[in-house]
């Protein structure tokens, strides 16, 4: 089973040379720490920054330079700043190659719910609806089950949707899964170290396709 850093590390293997990448809040942010050596990747922050660097050194933080999670950040050489309309313009026009974000639920046709729990949480969708409606390649980083032990990979989302038929890949503490086109379900690609196929089947409520031997992931 993977911890949060393990999930981030596995997802980071999907990041290729030359990619512009948008990382969501939480586990996705950790992916920045595991981008493979020797490749050139530019991180986009939807509040208007390309070329986001690491957190600043103590004492060098600036109130004018933050990421979409409102954390103080830095800029790498070659960075650029733009307004929020251009930021979502480059997302909508698919200039950003990969979006990695968290989710509360994903359905077997790739619908995602991650912005609202009626009666409990009313924080808003931020940029998530724009990102999932436009990105070519969306990877979800999440736990396989919720705190009550219920599967978050469902036949249909029960929570209000953020976007429809958009998630391409899911990485959880247990597995790597593709979302097959046309409602084909979740295809099990890899198991986390020490996790059995039986456990993944037991914890996946939506349609799960298991085809032959499922390799253990290499991270």
């Amino acid at each position, binding site marked *: 089973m993977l911890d949060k850093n393990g999930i981030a590390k596995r997802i980071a293997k999907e990041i290729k040379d030359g990619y512009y990448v948008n990382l969501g809040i939480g586990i996705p942010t950790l992916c920045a720490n595991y981008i493979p050596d020797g490749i050139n990747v530019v991180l986009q922050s939807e509040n208007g920054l390309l070329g986001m660097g690491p957190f600043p050194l103590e004492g*060098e933080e600036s109130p004018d330079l933050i990421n979409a999670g409102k954390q103080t950040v830095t800029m790498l050489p070659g960075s650029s700043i733009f307004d929020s309309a251009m930021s979502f313009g480059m997302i909508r026009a698919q200039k950003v190659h990969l979006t990695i974000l968290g989710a509360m639920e994903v359905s077997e046709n790739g619908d995602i719910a991650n912005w609202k729990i009626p009666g409990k949480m009313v924080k808003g969708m931020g*940029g998530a609806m724009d990102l999932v409606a436009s990105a070519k390649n969306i990877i979800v980083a999440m736990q396989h089950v919720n705190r009550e032990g219920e599967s978050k990979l469902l036949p249909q989302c029960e929570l209000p949707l953020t976007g429809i038929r958009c998630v391409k890949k899911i990485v959880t503490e247990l597995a790597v899964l593709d979302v097959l086109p046309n409602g084909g379900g979740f295809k099990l690609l890899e198991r986390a170290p020490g996790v059995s196929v039986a456990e993944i089947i037991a914890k996946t409520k939506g349609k799960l396709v298991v085809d032959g031997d499922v390799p253990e992931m290499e991270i």
Partner: protein
Amino acid sequence: MNKIYANAEEAIKDIEDGAVLMLGGFGLCGIPENCITALVKKGTKNLTCISNNAGVDDFGIGLMLQTRQVKKMISSYVGENAEFERQLLSGELEVELIPQGTLATRCLAAGYGMPAIFTPAGVGTEVAIGKETRNFNGKDYLMEYAFDADFALVKAWKGDAAGNLIFKDTARNFNPLMAMAGKITIAEVEELVPSGELDPNFIHTPGIYIHRIFQGSGYEKRIEQKTVRKRL
């Protein structure tokens, strides 16, 4: 044509109860601090505020929520404000949550003189309820209208007497968009200089969009999430 005002109190004097306002900023980054303070002092009520966020409990738009000056918020994310959540759940405050890119592009449309835009954000979700949908090249898009705001309150790093503005780092965010979109736009700047001192090649917002400008004072520029690396 004098656009220069002495301070925020003078610049916002004619904002009446019930006005529709745009306020620039992302989180607490690049918010019009002086204008917010002046509005709290003036006590203008029943405001509709279009702003990506609603501040925190004791700073930014949060200050106007404490004094019950806001009737309605139009925002994309309001997670940092407990008083906001309380007023929302008790029904004191009307809230319209919209996708962040939609918010930005509805400002852009207003500033570009376009009545509406089409966006895929929110298709198939509750955001789409009651909205016209059009299919272009096999993909569905929602029609979203340009905003119609009485005043836009924006914050810039530098400005000149002609109203030209330059923003600093990610404090740019919604500010140039809202600057274009207000019927009357009020810009507060950290440094106000005479015309001719800013290089025209590096202006972010041309002065034509700015009706009033003043040099702000006492900027707190509060950091919402200070995240740093330890020095070794």
